[in-house]
Structure formats: structure tokens, C-alpha cells
């Protein structure tokens, strides 16, 4: 008898929970997804005999989708972006060779497979906008006006490098003309800084777009959260590319976060999120363009998740043996330069084979010149490490970049008050 009585409330509860909730208690959000394919695969650690390895599960047999026509790019612009991507890739090949010749100090970081994201995104920036590149966005530095020789001299620690030998790889910037913020080695820290650049511009009455990047690994840091949230609350024009290249060093994306797509994070910040194919230069550009226009109109930040894969290890020393081979094969077929070349030469027929070959030759010639210059340039003297710790003796004149801020004069007066004290 008692058992029956206990069942009744349980049954009633089951009935209640089975009934559909009214729609007002449910929320839904949309994340725009511009990709022409949506692969579903996951990575897990499994034991195979004596060792633990990563195993990929999912259908990797889909054919490579076409490049999605851009809504905004002209033929000339597409070819320009293609050239930047070529320069980006061939520069990194040259860096790899320099490393093998023992001419590089320290390691080399590659953005292999990610050139479309670096180049097409930065291409959407205007002169007065700002860029904060991460380690694999060397292509964006080229688009922004630095040369291959600048980057090579950085890697070779030469006196003529943008940091005069004081920092490595892509850790350089330019506050005067190219508007680039130099990254530091810790991840996510550029995000609040770029937000602050937009804040400074706004205080000077100017609405700009500021663009930076973060990886699937890097987005795990606390400062990433603080930075995006600050930009959202302050409605600053931050265009954030979340480059989900599936690997943070040896750690797969499945071990960095629980959400299905990183663009979903945008919901948490209250900003628009959009997903694009990171190996499709047109999709990258369109998303960047729309986000930058939003930013310049004062409509606030956008989070763009670009999906792709890191096609080399974390740095040159890392063979990336932990990456399951089928994944490399899948993404190799989707190489951004191969796809874009095919699009320009075969699909749109905007480049003849001869023009394409000429373009490639020109890029290789520029790189040869830059490599010669960089290799033959001098190392810094030991004494050149001294000085510059502080900005002293008028070494910089600091002026507002966009114009003197207009100040509103309120009627408040300086207060001499005895206000509430927290402590004795």
C-alpha cells in the first residue's frame, strides 16, 4: 500500500516533466554559418596496445566544397589576396629553409594552411584601423605593410629587424603608420589591448575597426574572456577571429572546450557570432568586411570562428606525430591556396595559367631579394641591448592620433569632502 502511495507523486512528477514547457521559458539564438560543408568529427584519447593516442571519429570522406563567391571582392582584389597568400606561404617555406641552414635563432612558427585567414581578414582593414596579429598571422603583417625581410630579420635576430633584435618572430608592431600592436607570448592579452585602442579612438571622436585573433587553445584563458566582455560592454569595434585550427600545441580542440562551435561563445558575450570556412578566402573576407563595417558604424564587436587545421606542428621542432593521419589528408585536400588558385584559374578564369605562373615567379623573386638582404644584414652589437627601458629625454612625442578629444564641460566643481570611510 505504501509503495503505491509513493508511486503516485513520482508518476505525477513524470507527467509534469513530460509535458512541453511553454515557449517563453526557452531561449534560442542563431549563429550564422557560411560554410558549404559542416564536417562532424571528434577526437578522443584511446589506448592502442601499449600507448595512448588520439583517434578521430567521423566521416572524413566528403568532397572538397567550392569556394563561395564573395559578395564584395572584385577580380583585382581576389588576385591581390591570392598574391598575399602566396607570399605568406613561400616566406614561411623560406624561413624553414633558413632554419635548416642554421641561420635562424630559436624556433619558427608556421601558419601553414591558415594563410587565407591571415591575409583575407587583414585585407578588410582600412588605413586608420588597427591590427593585433598572433604568432601564425604573419600573412596579416605582410598585408599591413611589413615586408618578408622584416619578418626574416626578426627570426634571424638581426640589427635591422623591426625590434632591433630585441624580440623574436611576429613580436613587433608599429604605432605610427601601419597601426599594428605587437603581441606577447601569453595568449588572449591582445584582446583587451585592441579593445582599448578602439576606446582611445572613440575618445578622440573616431570610430574604427580593430582586428585581432585567438586560437582554440588561446581562447581558454581568462584574459580572453575579460577582453571580449569589456569590448562588448563598451560596444567597441573589436573584430575577433577565433582561429579554430583544432590543435593547441598537442592538445586537441575537444580537450579545450565543451561547446560544439567556438562561435557559440559569442552568445555568452552578447555579441554576434558567425562561422566561416577558414580555408576559403572569400568567406573570410566577407565576414571580416561585414564585421569591420559594423565596427566602424559603432555597432560593436563581432566574433568570427574560422574553421581549419594547423598543418604543421606547434613550431618547427614539433613533428605533430600526435595528429591522426586521416585528419592531415582531409585538410590537405582543402588547402586554401590550392583551392583559391583553382577558383581563380579554372572556375572564374580570372587568371590564365601563364599569368598565374608569372605571379608566382614575381612572388618568388621578391622573396629571394628579401632573403638575400636579410641574410646579409648585420647582427646587432652587444651594447645595443642597452637603453630604451624607459621613454626618456623626449624620445617620443605623444599626441592623440585621431585628433584632440572634444571635452564636454559639466558644471561639477572640485569637491573637498569628508566622505564615508571604509576602515578606522
Amino acid at each position: 500500500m505504501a509503495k503505491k502511495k509513493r508511486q503516485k507523486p513520482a508518476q505525477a512528477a513524470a507527467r509534469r516533466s513530460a509535458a512541453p514547457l511553454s515557449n517563453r521559458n526557452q531561449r534560442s539564438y542563431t549563429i550564422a554559418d557560411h560554410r558549404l560543408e559542416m564536417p562532424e568529427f571528434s577526437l578522443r584519447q584511446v589506448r592502442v596496445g601499449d600507448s595512448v593516442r588520439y583517434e578521430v571519429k567521423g566521416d572524413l570522406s566528403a568532397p572538397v566544397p567550392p569556394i563561395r563567391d564573395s559578395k564584395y571582392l572584385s577580380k583585382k582584389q581576389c588576385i591581390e589576396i591570392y598574391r598575399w597568400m602566396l607570399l605568406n606561404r613561400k616566406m614561411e617555406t623560406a624561413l624553414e629553409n633558413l632554419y635548416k641552414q642554421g641561420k635562424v635563432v630559436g624556433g619558427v612558427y608556421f601558419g601553414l594552411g591558415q594563410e587565407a585567414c591571415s591575409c583575407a581578414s587583414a585585407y578588410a582593414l582600412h588605413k586608420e584601423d588597427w591590427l593585433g596579429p598572433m604568432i601564425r598571422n604573419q600573412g596579416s603583417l605582410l598585408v599591413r605593410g611589413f615586408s618578408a625581410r622584416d619578418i626574416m630579420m626578426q627570426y634571424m635576430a638581426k640589427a635591422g629587424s623591426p625590434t632591433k633584435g630585441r624580440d623574436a618572430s611576429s613580436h613587433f608592431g608599429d604605432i605610427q603608420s601601419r597601426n599594428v600592436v605587437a603581441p606577447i607570448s601569453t595568449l588572449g592579452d591582445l584582446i583587451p589591448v585592441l579593445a582599448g585602442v578602439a576606446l582611445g579612438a572613440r575618445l578622440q571622436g573616431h570610430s574604427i575597426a580593430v582586428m585581432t585573433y585567438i586560437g582554440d587553445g588561446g581562447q581558454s584563458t581568462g584574459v580572453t574572456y575579460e577582453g571580449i566582455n569589456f569590448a562588448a560592454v563598451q560596444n567597441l569595434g573589436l573584430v575577433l577571429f577565433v582561429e579554430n585550427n583544432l590543435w593547441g600545441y598537442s592538445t586537441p580542440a575537444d580537450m579545450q572546450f565543451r561547446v560544439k562551435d567556438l562561435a557559440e561563445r559569442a552568445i555568452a558575450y552578447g555579441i554576434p557570432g558567425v562561422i566561416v570556412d577558414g580555408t576559403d578566402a572569400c568567406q573570410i573576407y566577407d565576414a571580416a568586411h561585414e564585421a569591420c563595417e559594423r565596427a566602424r558604424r559603432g555597432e560593436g564587436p563581432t566574433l568570427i570562428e574560422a574553421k581549419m587545421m594547423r598543418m604543421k606542428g606547434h613550431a618547427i621542432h614539433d613533428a605533430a606525430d600526435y595528429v591522426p593521419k586521416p585528419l592531415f589528408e582531409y585538410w590537405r585536400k582543402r588547402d586554401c591556396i590550392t583551392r583559391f588558385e583553382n577558383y581563380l584559374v579554372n572556375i572564374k578564369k580570372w587568371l590564365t595559367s601563364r599569368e598565374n605562373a608569372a605571379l608566382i615567379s614575381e612572388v618568388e623573386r621578391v622573396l629571394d631579394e628579401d632573403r638575400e638582404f636579410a641574410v646579409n644584414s648585420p647582427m646587432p652589437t652587444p651594447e645595443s641591448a642597452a637603453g630604451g627601458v624607459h621613454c626618456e629625454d623626449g624620445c617620443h612625442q605623444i599626441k592623440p592620433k585621431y585628433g584632440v578629444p572634444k571635452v564636454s564641460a559639466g558644471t561639477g566643481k572640485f569637491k573637498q569632502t569628508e566622505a564615508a570611510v571604509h576602515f578606522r
Partner: protein
Amino acid sequence: MPQLTYLEAIRQGIWEEMERDPTVFCIGEDIGIYGGAFKVTDGFIDRFGAERVIDTPIAESAIVGAAFGASLTGMRPVAEFQFMDFIGCAFNQIVNMVAKAHYRWGAPAPLVIRGPSGGNVHGGPFHSQNPEMWFVHAPGLKVVCPASAYDAKGLIKAAIRDNNPVIFFEHKYLYRRIKEEVPEEDYIVPLGKARTAREGHDLSIITYAAMVHVALEAAEILAKEGIDVEVVDLRTLSPLDREAIAQTVGKTNKVIVLHEDVRTGGIAGEISSIINEEAFDDLDGPIVRITARDSPVPFSPPQEEYFLPNISDVVREARRLKAY
């Protein structure tokens, strides 16, 4: 001349700089309509508007990062930390992003990070610290610790005008406890220069912030015993005024270094080494350190008293040193 508290002097200094230079703005938690947890920015939002007095989410890394970003466009942000104990939350931005910017890529960072530090207010471990040495230890930053209302105004104005990142530690014990005549006009106290708070001939006490007042009170007691104490207020911890340190040792030949910061890693060790390098032959006795104990700051008043250096510590050590 009006009498202002140490806090009001800081307020007046920032106010004047915001009047004078439209690139100066304030950013921090609760600094707008509330006027700041300690009311340093009281009245600012009414006068200068919400655009220049920005309330932020609780996100210290974002506060410092955004201030740095704004400074790259030529603004001069004044970032408030509600308590300097929370500066740990922005540590990476300060020492890695900001401090190294000018050295490695030629980008000056003309921002000021300011807030209340120090104990003797029953604040417990997270509202009473003296974190200055974490930043003295990072090349590229300047660290300032005023002890008087006059200096507080002059130094905050100098810090705002400085092209370098300045960490400005305001001793909360002094906020409303000291009041002095502060000129209403525009004046600067230069960074990197100590001042002699009391002239003396028998021994020197080198100190800063709230301990300056402890040293001065001890000096009055010692004067009655015929011990004439010179008190040197460092004012800036980085860069240290090495000349002033050497000079006072040359004058009195005996020195006590007094600070409210903990013993290990406190600036007394650094100053002792500097004296060793610059004025060893002038010493007639060992360099004495009087500091807080090596522990977190305890909360209960009798415990905090045990933890902190006090006047009787100074008097006792001065007598011993004089007799050496």
C-alpha cells in the same frame, strides 16, 4: 592656502590634469557615479562626463589592457585599482604587455595605475598589502609611493605627464589622517627624487609612505635623548634616488631602512646593496632594517600590531645603532 587631506590632494591633482589635458581620462571600478570606493574621483563624472570617467566590469586584466591600448592612440589613462591588493589580477598585463612595450617595440605606455595600498586599518590579508616590490622588480615600470599630501598632488601630476607606465601606490592609512597646506596652483614633484623630511646628524632613517610619519614621531622622541635623526622620504621606489641615499649615509654614517613592506624582498635589501656599492666607506655601523614580518597581513588588531613595525621598534633600533 587651503588645507587638503592626502586623498583630496590626489583628487585635486588628477582633476587639474584632466582640466589641463583632454587626453587624460579615468578608468576603473565604481569610479563614476559612486566616485570611487575611497571617493578619490568624487565629482569627476559630473564635471568631465561618462566618456572620460569609465566604470568597468570586474576585470583587472581588461582594465590594464584597455588602458594600454588607449595609450597607444595617444591618450593618457589613469586606471584605478579599488585596492592595490587586486593588482595580482592584472599582473601579466602589467609586467609582460605594458612594462616591456617601449624596450622591445618602441611603444611608450603613458598610463598611470593607481590605488590604495598599505595596512594598519584592520583590512586583513587582501586589503592591506604593500605589493610595490613586484613592480620595482620589473624593468620598464616606475613605482611611486607618496607620504605627504603636498607630494601626493605633485607626484600624481608628474606621473600623469610621464611617458612611462607609473604604478602609483596611495597609502590608505594616510588618506584622511594627514592634512596639510597644498597649493591650489599647478606644480609638479619630480619622479625619481627623494626628499629630506627631517634634517639630522646622528643617523638616517630611509623610508617611504606611512612609515615616514612613524619615523618622524620616533625622531621627536629620540631628539629628547639627544639623538638627532635625519629622515629621508624616498617618494619614488623605481627609479631609486641613489644620490640621495649615498648623500645621507655620507652625512650621518649610520642608517636604518624602514618600510611597512615585508622583510624578504622588501626594498631595504636593495638599498643595503646600493649603500654597499656607493657609500661603504662612509658606514660606521651595520645597515639596520626595520620591516614588517614575513607573513600575510593578519586581520585581528593585536595581530596586525605584532606584524607591523612601530614607533618603539624605531626608537629601540635607533638607540642601539647610535651606541654602536
